[in-house]
């Protein structure tokens, strides 16, 4: 009931704020607001290890968090000038549209209706993590494919499109199953661990992250079957191109840095080398030695240097939070650069 009430309150709040915001000047971009404030308000989940997680010392950690930090480093010159807001799935879009946060970096799937003005009215930044809905089972259950789940029970959480994806995929495969729905992620996990259901479904990253919290993570396996496409991307409110572009090219900068082989460790050497060698034209533009690309965006020319110095390139960010040595190891697969068979590809910095 609380969640429904919150939703209702949120709906009325949005309309109220919409009415008030009507008189504000149109030309004011969020980019200026953030600069003026000196702090980036970033919406995160805070409950998903590897993506955004509140550590015991009170700091936030994860791939989504690093996007916030990179944007803060670029816009404000200080990656720690971020005010994190923990948001639940139903709250997130309202928080963004009402202006409570500047940037939503919270494992959010980019979809048509969320992007469109008639829907949630967001503008999505480049995809930060290519995900898909998956199924997790006990390793000793002998279940290896979706067909093995015939007649079994699958536990699922509410508040996302997970339920419908599950139904669509099993219907298409002709597999009969039983879905048991809970409101909270914790309840889904408890029911699964207590043996009420043979399998549990969520985004594959979410499953990996949930598994890392179990007593014996190795006793659970994520099936190869992928039930849906879930491109997770940060989002800003629609109709503010200057702000959206600043966020978009900050993320492309992280991806392109990996393509160029620039890391947080060698970036200063790269900048010095490019400054000394006029033949490295592309590198000089990218690192802001010349070209004024940053200025076109309303950012400092060395914005890529600021971002990479603060959080590393995309590959470094990934390895830190989701790499083999991390708490939530997820194979890079689709999330590799395009040269390694993945989907990450930055447009040219020209």
């Amino acid at each position, binding site marked *: 009931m609380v969640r*429904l009430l919150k939703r209702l309150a949120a709906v009325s709040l949005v309309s109220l704020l919409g*009415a008030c915001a009507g008189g504000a000047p149109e030309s004011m971009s969020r980019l200026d607001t953030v600069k003026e404030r000196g702090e980036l308000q970033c919406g995160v989940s805070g409950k998903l290890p590897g993506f955004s997680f509140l550590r015991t010392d009170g700091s936030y950690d994860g791939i989504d968090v690093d996007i916030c930090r990179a944007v803060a480093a670029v816009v404000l010159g200080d990656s720690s000038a971020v005010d994190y807001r923990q948001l639940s799935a139903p709250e997130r879009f309202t928080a963004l549209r009402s202006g409570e946060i500047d940037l939503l970096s919270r494992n959010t799937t980019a979809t048509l209706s969320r992007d469109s003005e008639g829907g949630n009215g967001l503008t999505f930044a480049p995809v930060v993590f290519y995900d898909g809905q998956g199924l997790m089972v006990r390793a000793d259950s002998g279940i290896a494919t979706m067909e093995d789940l015939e007649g079994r*029970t699958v536990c699922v959480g509410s508040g996302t499109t997970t*339920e419908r994806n599950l139904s669509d995929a099993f*219907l298409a495969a002709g597999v009969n199953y039983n*879905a048991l*729905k809970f409101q909270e992620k914790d309840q889904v996990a408890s029911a699964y661990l207590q*043996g009420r259901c043979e399998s549990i479904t969520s985004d594959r990253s979410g499953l990996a992250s949930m598994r890392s919290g179990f007593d014996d993570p190795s006793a659970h396996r994520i099936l190869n079957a992928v039930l849906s496409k879930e491109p997770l991307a940060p989002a800003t409110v629609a109709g503010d191109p200057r702000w959206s572009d600043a966020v978009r090219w900050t993320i492309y900068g992280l991806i392109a840095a990996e393509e160029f082989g620039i890391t947080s460790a060698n970036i200063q050497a790269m900048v010095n080398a490019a400054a000394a060698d006029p033949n490295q034209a592309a590198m000089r533009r990218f690192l802001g030695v010349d070209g004024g690309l940053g200025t076109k965006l309303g950012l400092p020319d060395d914005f890529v240097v600021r971002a990479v110095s603060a959080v590393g390139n995309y590959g470094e960010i990934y390895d830190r939070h989701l790499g083999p040595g991390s708490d939530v190891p997820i194979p890079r697969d689709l999330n590799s650069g395009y040269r390694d068979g993945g989907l990450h590809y930055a447009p040219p910095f020209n």
Partner: protein
Amino acid sequence: MPVSTSNPGADHVSRRTTRNLPPGPTPWRSWLLQGLFGLLLLALIGLLLSNLQVNLLRTGQGLGFGWLVQPAGFELSEHWLPYLPGDSYAWALLVGFVNSLRVVGLGLVASTLVGVVAGSASFSTNLLLRQLAFGYVAMVRNVPLLLQLLFWYFVVFLGLSSTPQVWLGGLLSLSNQGVEVLGQRWSVEFGALLAGLTLFTGAYIAEVVRGGITSVPRGQWEAARSLGLGDNVKALRLVVLPQALPAILPGLASQYINLAKNSTLAIAVGYADIYAVSDTTITQTGRAIEGFLVLLLSFLLLDLLISGLMQLLNRMVLRRR
């Protein structure tokens, strides 16, 4: 006859109390006041409606119910009516409503039994029984219902062994795969929800029953004893309880309605009630306001049904006197 204490539900009593009220304001003044109040109420409703309309227009979506006939596309863990994911949202909501009716209906009967027994037990001459009844009420009333439901589901029911344990000569069979009562198979989700709601509401009903019995003058107990009904249980059943009934029934009705409303906590233990279904429906369609309206209407229907039944019962009891 017992002294009639607080009894707002019984209409003949309220009429009697009205007559005892001091003379009110002159008729024209009372009409004016009532008219003003009515106007204010209308204005408030009008304001809320126009606000809703304006907000809906601003977000670009008018009030519409076309989504009700679209396929729901989600599975329900249990259903009394036949249901497939290809069925419409309207049908899914109806299936959820029937699921709610089922747990509320059984909960009403079971919590009444528990409540009457616990309420009567607090008048027992047996100290242990009396203390047990008080202890039960105190414990259950002071722990939030959600916590109790989670306890029943995750600790008690899912903690059962997977091989069925048979109780009461085969009448009750328990395992973490399901519950069987009198040959009826229930899911553990339903079992946990029913157990939690029954014990919670039962504690409140016990207090209502205790209050009703206390309202019967002590003389009635003594009179019963002097008539040869030395047995306390017999005196309670034949003399005291029938006289306490008019005081108990109105309080009972509000406890029943509470039970119906509390049943929305079903989603915490994975039971597909109307609230759980509308939650998914609202998420998938984005039609929050329409979804709320459907939810509001179904609970209005459920509560009117319960209070209608209770009124009928009330009238029957009063006629018998």
